[in-house]
């Protein structure tokens, strides 16, 4: 199995642990990735606010380069990239006026795009192409006893639900169950983390992220599993600031419902990429999965002897 790979800017910067773990995990599963030659920024959400047509032109350059290569399926692990590339495809399909501008711009760059590049998300590929039985076979250290809140965020299921249910996605839940994790009920799985507002307007932005962490703690999760570099950044790196604002709020104790406990002065719950959990289950070394890059370290429950 071979894919073109579109890392996007975050996976080369603050989200490099996502790239590290994704590459390792796919290698174990025999998936070959070819990084898209000279890829450019997808435009994310910020660019769309300045010029939506130009944003589509930026994204279409990547689609055109992918079409030129032998393996046309494009793997986009970052939620923003995944959405913008898909959105551009929709515009090309739905709006002749936008398509005309894009084609004209591509021509100027000596590129062409015929519309034949499926943009895929790793969750989709792992569950629907590779399949859970194949993944189970590779598990050498089942993550038995690890309670996980699976957080999907906005943009992989909205506005286009290409491979999962829009209201209650379950792909990641099934994947993590397959490697032995216990999924806690997490009804906020597609609620917004605040996106880039955490950096621009902390009060509303951080509140969005805080609600997510608080709920995960309240549900008794040991770890939050994410699929997006921005979600991971918001939930992991702004913890001090959230704790400073709301860390002393009292919530029901996950272990004893009759008891009230503070959310915790540091909101101590690790936030990792789902690929890091997969890598751990495959027995890959923590360092190669970028686990040391998380601000709150993940402590695994002790290995249960034998029997997977």
């Amino acid at each position, binding site marked *: 199995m071979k894919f073109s790979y579109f890392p996007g800017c975050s996976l080369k910067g603050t989200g490099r642990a996502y790239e590290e773990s994704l590459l390792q995990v796919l290698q174990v599963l025999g998936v070959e990735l070819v990084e898209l030659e000279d890829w450019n920024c997808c435009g994310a959400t910020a660019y769309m606010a300045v*010029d939506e047509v130009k944003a589509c032109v930026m994204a279409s350059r990547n689609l055109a380069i992918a079409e030129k290569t032998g393996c046309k399926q494009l793997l986009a692990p970052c939620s923003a990239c995944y959405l913008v590339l898909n959105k551009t495809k929709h515009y090309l399909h739905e709006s002749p006026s936008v398509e005309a501008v894009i084609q004209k711009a591509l021509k100027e760059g000596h*590129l062409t795009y015929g519309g034949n590049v499926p943009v895929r998300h790793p969750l989709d590929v792992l569950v629907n192409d590779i399949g859970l039985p194949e993944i189970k076979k590779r598990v050498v250290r089942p993550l038995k006893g690890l309670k996980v809140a699976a957080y999907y965020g906005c943009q992989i299921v909205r506005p286009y639900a290409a491979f999962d249910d829009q209201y209650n996605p379950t792909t990641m839940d099934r994947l993590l169950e397959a490697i032995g994790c216990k999924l806690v009920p997490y009804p906020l799985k597609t609620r917004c983390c605040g996106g880039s507002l955490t950096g*621009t*307007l902390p009060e509303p932005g951080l509140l969005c992220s805080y609600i997510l962490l608080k709920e995960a703690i309240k549900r008794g999760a040991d770890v939050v599993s994410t699929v997006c570099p921005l979600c991971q950044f918001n939930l992991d790196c702004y913890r001090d600031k959230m704790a400073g604002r709301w860390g002393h709020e009292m919530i029901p104790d996950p272990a004893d419902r009759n008891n009230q406990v503070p959310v915790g002065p540091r909101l101590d719950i690790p936030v990792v990429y789902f690929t890091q959990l997969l890598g751990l289950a495959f027995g890959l070394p923590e360092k190669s999965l970028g686990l040391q890059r998380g601000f709150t370290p993940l402590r695994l429950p002790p290995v249960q002897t034998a029997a997977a």
Partner: protein
Amino acid sequence: MIELKRTIKYESDRVPGFGHEVMSVPGCEQLETCIQCGTCSGLCPLSIFMDYTPRQVMELTRSDFKQEVLRSTTIWLCASCYACTVECPKQIRITDIMYELKQRAIHEGIYPKRFPIPVLAQEFYKMSHKHGRVTENFLATILFLKTNILAAIGMWRLGLNLITHGRFPLKMEGIKRKDELGRMMAVVDQLSIDKLTDRRRAPAAGGNGQGGH
């Protein structure tokens, strides 16, 4: 004494044609059919911070209240989570309409000078053009210098943490064929200039015609 403020908009506050202009943009057409149910406002995780709720912005836009929507905090607080878009019973692409309104506000320069969200959008835009890629920590640094240096000081701890955890690249990322991307963008610029001059020419011609009568 309680300060009294007019809460109802008057006919004279309208900018006739604004709603139609927005609704003619690809993706925004469905706004015409809004039934004002308020599903968007109820779902929006950020509506509690907005001056107008998303439902109100939809009606204000459709009814030509250009100044009110372009000056609202609503358009900037939209984090593009698309919750409203997927739930709207009339399939109105609310998130895309918010994008369209943001573009217009930036284009007309209608936003508080140091308001960080439009500044971020424009710096992101500039950096992705100049380098073809965005290096987030550089972008964040520029943002704080341009909007709020005091907030930048409050971020030292985060910066330090990112450095110690190996998440703070020291090199600016970029693409090889910047000229190719530049040429492609120039095409869009040229097309929108043509469109703008067309638009300007049309009303001017109409005005002269009326003047002649």
